[in-house]
């Protein structure tokens, strides 16, 4: 199968859906000629024109709100939010408006929009361009949240998101844009709420999202060499969450670590760990561990930044301790 980058995968997904559905258009900062700072959208304006690939002023709350209004009136907008960190700017329109219109109107209004943005530290971008804020939006009923972990997921989840009639937030790992993966030539969609078992194992379950899937896979490689069989599961969407697949795995392995690049406290890892404790407690041989980003603003210096996010070595070390019966309690 051909291999393409995550960036190309996103670009293809958007182009295919725009060809299929004339009500789809895209707006955001520097999306047209510039194709975004990450060049993810390069070439789209040549095919679709500035009427459908719309450069906006630097007015994040405004243009996210425009997408909400357009979505409520027959269009299917994709909003490009240049950095995930800018989510703080758009919270009213995303969380008070987009997320609640369908419910507040008793089902009369709906908001079929996609907000695509990114996550991920270690790009030396400091505290305001490095955050992984998926937990913030996953907390809000009415929003769906997708976290692709490779080019394959990025394409299939984006196409599903564009066709969904709910507001969907997709976070892409900005460090993975140039990473290649096998992506079929023919059309496919990845349904929301279906986890992907990336690697089967019997001793411990590593549940990892987005950027952390490759971290978990590397840890699993290391552990395999030591005779520890780790299962790696990528939930792919955290809202909706494929709880059943996660619970089944933990019932089999009886140990689990949840890994996500958002801050650990009150985060995605906490939520998934809680659900496993509630629903698989009697199958567990050890506490479910959480591994997220440190609870610190992301520092600039590489010497510091690299310490703030989970690594394959860290995950493997934690897994060893769980499997050896050495219980770990959070510091």
């Amino acid at each position, binding site marked *: 199968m051909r291999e393409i980058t995550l960036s190309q995968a996103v670009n293809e997904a958007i182009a295919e859906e725009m060809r299929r*559905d*004339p*009500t789809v*258009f895209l707006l955001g900062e520097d999306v047209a000629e510039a194709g975004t700072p990450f060049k993810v959208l390069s070439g789209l304006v040549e095919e679709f024109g500035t*009427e*459908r690939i719309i450069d*906006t*002023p630097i*007015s994040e*709350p*405004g*243009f*996210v*709100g*425009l*997408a*909400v*209004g*357009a*979505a*409520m*009136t*027959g*269009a*299917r*907008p994709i909003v490009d939010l240049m950095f995930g960190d800018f989510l703080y700017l758009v919270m*009213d*329109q995303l969380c*008070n*408006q987009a997320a609640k*219109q*369908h*419910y*507040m*109107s*008793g*089902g*009369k*209004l*709906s908001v*079929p929009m996609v907000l695509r943005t990114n996550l991920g530290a270690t790009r030396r971008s400091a505290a305001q361009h490095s955050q992984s804020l998926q937990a913030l939006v996953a907390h809000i*009923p*009415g929003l*769906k949240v997708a976290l692709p972990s490779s080019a394959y997921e990025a394409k299939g989840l984006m196409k599903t998101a*564009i*066709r*969904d*009639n*709910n507001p969907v937030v997709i976070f892409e790992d900005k460090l993975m844009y140039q990473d290649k993966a096998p992506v079929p030539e023919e059309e496919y969609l990845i349904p929301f709420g279906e986890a992907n078992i990336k690697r089967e194992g019997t001793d411990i379950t590593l549940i990892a999202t987005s950027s952390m899937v490759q971290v978990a896979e590397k840890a699993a490689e290391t552990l395999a060499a030591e005779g520890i069989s780790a299962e790696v599961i990528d939930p792919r969407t955290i809202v909706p969450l494929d709880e059943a697949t996660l619970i089944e795995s933990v019932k089999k392995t009886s140990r689990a670590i949840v890994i996500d690049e958002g801050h650990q406290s009150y985060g995605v890892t906490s939520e998934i760990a809680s659900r496993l404790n509630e629903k698989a407690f009697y199958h567990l041989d050890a506490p479910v561990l959480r591994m997220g980003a440190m609870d610190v603003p992301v520092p600039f210096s590489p010497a510091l930044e690299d310490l703030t996010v989970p690594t394959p070595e860290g995950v493997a070390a934690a897994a060893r301790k769980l499997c050896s019966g050495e219980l770990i309690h959070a510091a």
Partner: protein
Amino acid sequence: MSIDMTEDSNVPYAIRTYPPEKLKDALRKMYLIRKFEEGAEDSYTRGLIHGTMHLCIGQEASSVGTCLSLTDSDKITSTHRGHGHCIAKGADVAKMFAEFFGKETGYCRGRGGSMHIADPSKGNLGANGIVGGGLPIAVGAALSAKRLGRDDVTICFFGDGANNEGAFHESVNMAAVWKLPVVFVCENNKYGMSTSIDRSTSVKSIADRAKGYDIPGVSVDGNDISAVAEAIETAVARARAGEGPSLVENVTYRWRGHSKSDRNRYRTKEEISDWMERDPIPRFAADLVSHGILSDAEVAELDADTDREIAEAIDFARSGPDPDISALTRDVYTETAA
């Protein structure tokens, strides 16, 4: 009696522009808004309605005058003080009351309440509990109209309080840059809760904000339905012709406090009574009578009919079923897909 229809005559714009039936319906809607608000207030006082509400008594000409020439496919976005906008855009007062009473028979099946009534079938994209929240949404509706080739115009109601929100400035700028078919209608009732515009706003007239975005801005007597209708028609025509947005400021006054918690300590009794003397409803009724559109008896009949309609609406609301609790989580997400 013959009416001099020329522009120079003293005949108000609305009367020389609209057919008698439309004018009669406009007066009916003004009565209906006033009585709806009074009925809501009375029901609240009697403990039948919970929460809070923001009444627009005194502002009826602004709502009705703004919506007078709109079609059902034209959109509006509304505000927390939005009951008048709903009625002006054609909402059924029985379903509105049912929503206030938290009933399944309400516009939003009891999920929205006073601040969130939406009626897309009449182009009403909903009221909003966040000051300024509807502004970008209105511009988005105008963007989709332009993108998808519809000729509808969006009216964006907002209050004087919202003119200092970033959402206002971002929205007007984008609408102006892209010449979108939207009309920004500021209902300036002089106070954002207790803070007067003199203390909050750097310009004398909110219409002056238009200069910053190079769009037309006009300030009118918001208690004069004719003045409102004329300004809006000009703005709507401009929007529909693809020439872009306008800002219309309807200067008006809310007789009641901001919400049920307001004790009116920031304004004088004299100020309130001065404005009550400028009541837009008898003013319009008198115009209709003096120009031979309605007789005194017909006005009295409208008055009585709307009393009856409101009483029946409250009965409908009270007797409706509560929402089914097993459906509490329905509509958090829609299950349909494109």
